């Protein structure tokens, strides 16, 4: 009798502890872990039927699973032992801090350009299986390094419902409307068919499944079954038989991620929130951070256009890719932003205001309008952002 409720209570206590004060380094989810309410942070996106709920719960455990070396952890390089390792702030599935950033490298002739990939690819992983000597280091001629923050997975299932046409309809590559903002979709060749990239800091991935495959290999070092789309490795150099990620487990994890609710609004009743929301629109933030896009299941309130923009000063140095040149990044969705400090692709902005003031080039008009606001107006705008 007693044990029946002691267990869930202490689990709850552990969850609270984890959510508020401690990095979540070990598995935190088991079959008894409460499922947050529909629509809450870390909860399902809609009412699930019993079979779906079971799959969602299984998928959450896969997301939380600490992979062992004997199960194929590493290529042998790793950035994480589990998905949760990085996606945990403020709940499992969300974002991560500066110490779970991924490091990329390249060569841009000390800023003179052009950007070139160096041997070894762009990623220098943070760690490696301890049974393999050394560390994956950048090519010694690398002269440019870029960190990438952990993006939140919350709501990505809903972004997956946005059609390519919907994204393309917001393009304005020649700035015909004259607002300074261009906006171009990232086109990815998938087995001969061009698809719009919607995920990743440079929109380098078209679908949620591609995104999870890419991260399963790139961060955790797991091999996958072939789905013909080119994301994730099918084999690696360790001795564990491929695919290391059991296909059924991957399907469960994909279902869980597809049905993670988007981060709900904070619900701050302060009337200044609405004032800030209006300013957000008036000074032009909403041109790129468009409050809502159309998905096949209804509106997607993501505050992004999913297009690439250059918001950096001319002397900005960073990674370049085919279809996403140096300086171009996807407009990051702002839903959930109150919980995902630090900001920008590499986390260089500690506060929301730091992030706003870093907007240049395509966003320089908006940044200067922000700068010209009164202190009260700025406060209202930050209050609004802090409610997202």
């Amino acid at each position: 009798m007693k044990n029946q409720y002691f267990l869930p209570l202490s689990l709850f206590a552990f969850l609270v502890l984890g959510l508020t004060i401690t990095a979540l380094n070990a598995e935190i989810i088991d079959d008894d872990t409460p499922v947050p309410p529909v629509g809450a942070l870390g909860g399902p996106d809609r009412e699930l039927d019993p079979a779906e709920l079971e799959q969602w719960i299984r998928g959450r455990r896969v997301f939380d699973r600490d992979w062992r070396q004997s199960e194929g952890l590493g290529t042998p390089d790793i950035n994480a032992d589990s998905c949760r390792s990085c996606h945990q702030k403020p709940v499992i599935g969300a974002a991560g801090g500066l110490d779970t950033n991924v490091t990329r490298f390249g060569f841009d002739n000390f800023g003179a350009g052009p950007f070139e990939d160096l041997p070894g690819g762009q990623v220098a992983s943070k760690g490696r299986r301890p049974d393999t000597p050394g560390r994956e280091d950048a090519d010694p001629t690398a002269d440019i390094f870029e960190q990438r923050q952990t993006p939140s997975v919350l709501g990505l299932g809903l972004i997956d419902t946005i059609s390519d046409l919907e994204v393309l309809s917001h393009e304005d590559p020649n700035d015909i409307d004259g607002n300074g903002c261009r906006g171009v979709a990232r086109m990815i060749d998938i087995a001969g068919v061009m698809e719009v990239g919607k995920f990743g800091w440079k929109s380098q991935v078209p679908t949620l499944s591609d995104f999870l495959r890419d991260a399963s290999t790139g961060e955790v070092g797991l091999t996958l079954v072939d789905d013909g789309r080119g994301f994730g490795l099918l084999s690696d150099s360790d001795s564990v038989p491929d695919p290391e990620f059991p296909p059924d487990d991957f399907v469960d994890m994909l279902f869980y991620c597809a049905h993670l609710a988007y981060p709900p609004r904070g619900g701050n009743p302060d009337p200044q929130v609405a004032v800030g929301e209006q300013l957000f629109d008036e000074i032009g933030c909403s041109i790129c951070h468009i409050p809502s896009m159309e998905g096949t299941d209804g509106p997607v309130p993501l505050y992004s256009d999913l297009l690439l923009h250059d918001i950096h000063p001319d002397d900005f140095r960073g990674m370049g890719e085919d279809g996403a040149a140096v300086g171009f990044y996807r407009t990051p969705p702002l839903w959930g932003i109150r919980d995902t400090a630090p900001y920008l692709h590499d986390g260089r902005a500690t506060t929301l205001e730091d992030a706003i003031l870093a907007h240049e080039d395509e966003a320089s008009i908006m940044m200067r309008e922000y700068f010209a606001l009164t202190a009260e107006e700025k406060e209202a705008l930050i209050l609004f952002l802090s409610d997202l």
Partner: protein
Amino acid sequence: MKIHISISILLVLCLSGSLCFSGNLLARDFERGDVNEDGSFDISDAIGMLNHMFLGDVAYCQDAMDVNDDGILNIADAIVSINYLFLNGDAPESPFGLCGPDLTKDNLTCESYSQCNLGDAILGLDLETFASFVRGRELMSKEFTPEEGLGPFYNATSCTACHSTPVPGGSAPIYRNFFFAAVGVPGSQGPIWDPELPSIVMPAYALPGNPRPAFPDPSQVGNQPVTIVQRNAPPQLGVGLFERISNSEIFGNSDPDDSDGDGISGRFNTDGSGNLGRFGFKAQANFLEAFLRGASNNQMGITTDPFLGSGGIVSAAMMQVSAGFDEPTIDDDLIQDPEISVQDFGDIVIFSMFLAPPPKGEMGPDEQDGETLFFQMECNKCHIPSLQSDLGPVEAYTDLLLHDMGPELADGISMGMPQFSTISASTTDSEFRTQPLWGVRLHGPWLHDGRADSMEDAILMHGGEGQASRDAYQALTPTQQQLVISFLEAL
């Protein structure tokens, strides 16, 4: 059912806003009535309650004193206790006789109860020290920003980034491993030359926008060897007690020349003046504050000033932790040093000094059989069950000495001072400090770099002086092997 509903309500509140304050909502487990946490409810507990109510003794867990669970600490609690103990009165309210949370809402607190919870304080602290411990426990999770001094190089933004499995002060999985990069041959190794790093700890990150520090190529360091090796975060639970073990107690178990010919040496790491190392996988430090100040700077780029300094040294010696007893640490970011106040860092030191060892598990018949096998296999020759300290026995299952673990585990790193021994004039790269086994179940992966997925893997990776015990383990039947593991899981 009711409980489940209240959980979800709390969870919603917690998830949907900032209503989750640490501490207050945390349902810390305790045993009602057992005020002195000795596992039984007796007159000494009633005296403890009265001493708190009338003499101001520190209360780690007010809930444990609230015997009648009315949410108030008063003489009635002592009366109910005495009635139960001597007059067949009613028993204390639940949880009584077992660990559990308080199920009724009140304003009483329970800040620490180490017999039921991991990561709480050892008993007997005064009010000021206990308050410092509680603050330090919170600060372990403080995430430093660049504006507060994080960097210029770092592996982590908070202490609990690497010390959180399963509680603040614990360990971490492999992805939190860090690298050493040492230049030179074992015995005279130093950090890489560029950038100017404080130690051989290799940072995974520079602040955003800066190059990641690279390992040197031997050609860049005068063709000296470059050693790259990983470390898994060591758990902190109970380590403060190692500082309370005398040099002579550790020395007494040493056998640097293997003069008894049992194949097990046991060498001590020393500063050359008889002061012995205690902390780190190579026993490279024996002063906890300096060790913590080193880690703070090496892992987070957070500079500190001394808190206790040499005035707090229990037994003076410190090797290769890149923080002197009495000198501030400094770095060359633009943030003024020290980047954490002496008081805040002192709270972290106090937390680490008085963090209790993990509570023991149940010793049933299987575990007792496993213990017998543990002794038969002579694991206890290095993992000796107990050392004496000025605070009583320290049942950590270690001798805090260095042992040769064979070529497979040798890591190319020597962190130590000259040895008074015929075996080698310095510590060798295959020597490791006997890892404490208390709480060993709690912090996999195992071994210095986390290469062992399981405790059994870890046993089977013992070579050198541990080879005979490893072979003895392998010769056991599967059932016997499981008994050994069961025993280890109870530590």
